[in-house]
């Protein structure tokens, strides 16, 4: 499929990508992010559920395997295009309307902090229709409401096909809640993200 077909001509609008993943998420994310070049176009902000009590090396692990800059999203830092951001464990991550990150220690949601829903809801407020939301494998219901929120703010939503996801609960919960624009295989999501990050959408 071409980018045009993937996104029904909406690719020109996109200014950021948010991705939520839980169980099975590391390999799914590596599959999607590893083809990306050093100079990609728009920022990718990721919430991956991991145990809160572990000092996570997530960003380092991904930084070793990916070409674009990979960092933890820091409180009050402005979102920089072409960067892959991970949420730090133990805090919720939001994007403010001025397009900077804020952390918070509110209660965990679906036993998770960071919450995929919280990131996506705030990103939907900050980016409106210029946002692509992607929800991957997971054994939690986190992300469904956030994705629905992106959709209702006019953004574009892609859910991994539950039939091929390592854990189907998370993508299925989203599909049960609303109708995403696309339900794609991991391979297709990989192609979509690559095209969106590299093609000159002028």
């Amino acid at each position, binding site marked *: 499929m071409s980018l045009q077909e993937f996104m029904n001509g909406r690719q020109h609008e996109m200014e950021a990508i948010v991705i939520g993943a839980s169980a099975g998420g590391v390999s799914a994310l590596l599959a999607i992010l590893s083809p990306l070049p050093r100079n990609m176009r728009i920022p990718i902000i990721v919430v991956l559920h991991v145990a809160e009590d572990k000092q996570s090396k997530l960003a380092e692990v991904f930084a070793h395997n990916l070409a674009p800059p990979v960092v933890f999203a*820091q*409180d*009050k*830092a*402005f979102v920089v295009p072409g960067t892959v951001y991970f949420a*730090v464990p*133990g*805090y*919720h991550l*939001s*994007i*403010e*309307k*001025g397009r*900077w990150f*804020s*952390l*918070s*220690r*509110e209660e965990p949601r679906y036993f998770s902090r960071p919450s995929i829903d*919280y990131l996506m*809801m*705030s990103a939907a*407020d*900050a980016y409106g229709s210029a946002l692509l939301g992607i929800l991957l494998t997971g054994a939690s219901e986190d992300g469904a409401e956030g994705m629905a*929120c992106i959709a*209702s*703010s*006019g953004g574009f939503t892609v859910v991994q096909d539950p039939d091929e996801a390592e854990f189907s609960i998370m993508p299925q919960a989203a599909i049960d809640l609303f109708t995403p624009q696309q339900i794609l295989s991991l391979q297709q999501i990989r192609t979509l993200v690559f095209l969106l990050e590299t093609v000159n959408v002028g």
Partner: protein
Amino acid sequence: MPKTKDATVDIELPLLMEAIYRRYNYDFRSYSMASQKRRVLHALRQLNCASISELQARILHEPEFFSRLLQYLTIPTTEMFRDPEYFLALREKVVPFLKTYPSLKIWVAGCSTGEELYSLAIVLKEEGLLSRTLLYATDINPAVLEKARKGIFPSNRIRTYATNYRAAGGKYSFSDYFTAAYDAAILDRSLCENVTFADHSLATDNVFSETQFVSCRNVMIYFNHDLQERALRLFHESLCHRGFLGLGSKENIEFSEVGSLFEPLDKPWRIYRKK
């Protein structure tokens, strides 16, 4: 359409913050809005209001109702000796300096229900400093200040606190600091003797004393850049020459102008020193 509803929320939310400020002088206008919005929407459901406008009308006319809303707008801290390595770093890198002062003043800004405050008090006691220290514990929320003043914690939390305490370099048996009473653990009152609790807002109030150490952990993450800047200026003004500032482990002062007036003493655990 949900989109219209969201657009309405975007109008109502700043109006609510303005109403709160004008009516009660609590300034949430410069808080980071994403989490503030979540908390207000959560409060709406808990307080049975159909819209933020309805909530606004009620808080304007019913002070008691505002007190209830306030409990949703502030985030309570979670545990004693959270990030044990921070307290270990304090013992190893800050306490030796503090010992050189004949008397000490320490400000715990945004003390919430007191977990951070009493963790510090225990460190000071074990280092022989508590008797010559005056601790100022401030917060904007009178309800949490009252809880902090009482020093009563749920006993099911004590085991976690004790694990943290040991990892933080605690020298004794943590349970010695508490008296058990049913399902509560009452803090040793000697830890509270030198504490002054006060209603103080980093958004609207000024400096009230010179201090050697300011602890303000996971408070400024809820502020926008301007309010963080204001708070840091207050701390800078309050701190004595080469005084110490302790922040939460994921806090970031790089994006503020005042940040350059502090130098890191322990970078990973966010302990700074006034330049």
